[in-house]
């Protein structure tokens, strides 16, 4: 039986992932800011399954507390997945560095802070898996939401470096770039159905990806090609486009 730590568990993808893991029999440690939602989730998982579920307060921005948080976990996790992310308001990011910094810290600094602790432990132990949920927005900076994009680009680089470092010690690192997904982050957006996944689908695909040791995961296949195209467009054309 695996013990899985889910950071940012109250996100829609986090909730779906927790449920999928619990149903396959893994014990679950849920970490997030909102204690009420965490308690509700834990109650739900205990009714659905018989696995052990615990809840832990975690704030990605409160980086000084990360070490205490990680050491205080009741059990050492076999796998860690981080769903922490903040889209932020693009216009506000451009106007106020405070807002922009919050986006950068939530998506990048805070995630690096906690995953470094996990990585050090897993490296020493010589086993485990780490999944970072990044975004297709990190594949190339674009005018709408480039603060979010640059943080996710940083996370992509971090995860790829981490993978190389931990490969020798047998620790598996995965980078998930979901593409459009129907979550509260994009509530009210008009998204094309064929390119948009459901949180449950993301959870299923990630679990399968961990099993198959897929290193970079796009949830729906077309995103890999769309992002490839966006990446290879020459800058002189790209800068004129509205995408």
């Amino acid at each position, binding site marked *: 039986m695996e013990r899985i730590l889910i950071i940012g568990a109250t996100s829609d993808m986090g909730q779906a992932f927790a449920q999928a893991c619990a*149903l396959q029999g893994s014990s679950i440690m849920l970490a997030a800011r909102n204690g009420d939602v965490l308690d*509700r*989730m834990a*109650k*739900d*998982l205990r*009714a*659905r*399954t*018989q696995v052990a579920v615990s809840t832990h307060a975690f704030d990605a921005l409160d980086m000084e507390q990360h070490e205490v948080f990680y050491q205080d976990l009741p059990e050492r996790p076999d796998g860690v997945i981080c769903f922490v992310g903040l889209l932020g308001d693009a216009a506000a990011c451009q106007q106020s560095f405070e807002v922009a910094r919050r986006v950068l810290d939530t998506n990048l600094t805070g995630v690096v802070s906690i995953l470094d602790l996990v990585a050090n432990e897993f490296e020493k132990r010589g086993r485990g898996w780490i999944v970072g949920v990044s975004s297709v927005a990190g594949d190339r900076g674009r005018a709408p939401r480039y603060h979010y994009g640059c943080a996710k680009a940083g996370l992509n680089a971090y995860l790829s470096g981490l993978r190389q470092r931990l490969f020798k010690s047998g620790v598996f690192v995965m980078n998930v770039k979901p593409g459009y997904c129907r979550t*509260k982050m994009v*509530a*009210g957006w008009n998204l094309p159905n064929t390119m948009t996944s459901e949180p449950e689908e993301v959870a299923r695909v990630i679990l399968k990806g961990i099993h198959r040791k897929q290193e970079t995961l796009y949830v729906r296949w077309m995103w890999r090609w769309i992002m490839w195209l966006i990446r290879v467009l020459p800058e002189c054309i790209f800068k004129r486009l509205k995408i």
Partner: protein
Amino acid sequence: MVNKMQKQKIADWGNYPVVEAETVRFNQAEQLRVALGEPGEVIAYGNGRSYGDASLQKRVIMTRSFRSFLSFDSASGVVCCESGALLAELLEAFVPRGWFLPVSPGTKFVTLGGAVAADIHGKNHHGEGSFGAHVVSLEVMRADGSIVRCSREEYPEFFALTIGGMGLSGVILNVTLQLKAIESAWVRQQTIRASRLSELMDAFESFDEWTYSVAWVDTLAGGDALGRGMLMRGEHATVEQVQGHSTFSAASQRKLNVPFFLPNGLLNRGTMMAFNSVYYHQNQKPVKERLVHYESFFYPLDAIGNWNRIYGRRGFMQYQFVLPRVTGRVAVEAILKKIQASGLGSFLAVLKLFGEQESFISFPMAGYTLALDFPVCFEVFKLMKELDAMVADWGGRLYLAKDARMDEAMFAKTYPHADDFREAIALLNGGSTRFSSLLSNRLGIT
């Protein structure tokens, strides 16, 4: 999740009618209370698996995000869940632990709230009744935001009004349900071929002791073969009977999908006749028995995602009626002849013998129920109108969860408690926020 209001086109499973509606989502009771604070007509919408317009209105409350499991007692098999949870989620969680749904409809993709509101039935109705019979208690939010906890002991009238009440008494918040103990995920299935209607009905009436029974009818076969079909009976398999299979294994993940609406009219008399003939003749032995997984016994159509799209964008209508047992034999035959004379065929026709049911407004009554699918077209409306008269004359009625066109007079004539139901709903609907659906408006209930 906030109360985001969105205008979107919505429909139920038959894709007829399609309406523009304002949709409100919620995942906490408090958010629902805020949404109900806005005056106007509103109805709950679950997973959109009723067929007609029962969950359609200009403003709808989407319940699918309100789906937490609240408790489960592994000793008694009593579970309590929020109303947006799907039956599929219950199966996923509890079949491996030896519990099954007390009543299964033909699809597992309905919400618990919808199952209660339509008081759905399954292949075991003759012995175990409808879904409502297994509901222990409910919590319902009324239009004024108050929450009523009801059961057979507490507010029994309100409880009776909510079971089968088509969502008109309020928004069902959570459902406490008694599950049924099983020994395995497998079903011992027996298939009996019947070469005409009377044979099929004899088979139904002589084998009441089977827990599950249902029949497929070839509506296109005429003459001597009128009403030929196949009766399927089932029994949950015991541990000894599943030797060689893993007791609670999940079904294989094989799943097909219809990715877009197929052309209107692809399903026509010719293609249906070919299909029915192949389907009927695939079973060469008169009686065949085998062990099947519960998924394929109860939910064969769930293996094809979006199967409703094979009828084309115009959509389809189900016509499901029930007739008292005494008139049933003659009446079903007459109705099949009527359909044949019309030249329209029903692709899927499902026949079942219901048991007794005491209820306020629910569909089932002791007798034969036949469910027919027709692609939406002009002639179908005319045919159904004529069938209405036959069904009403023989003392039968139509299933509200599948209806998109019955008129007020037909409803009043065929549902014995129609007047009482209307009055009770009117009493509850006193405030500025009122529960009503396109169905309840059409039938003159609201």
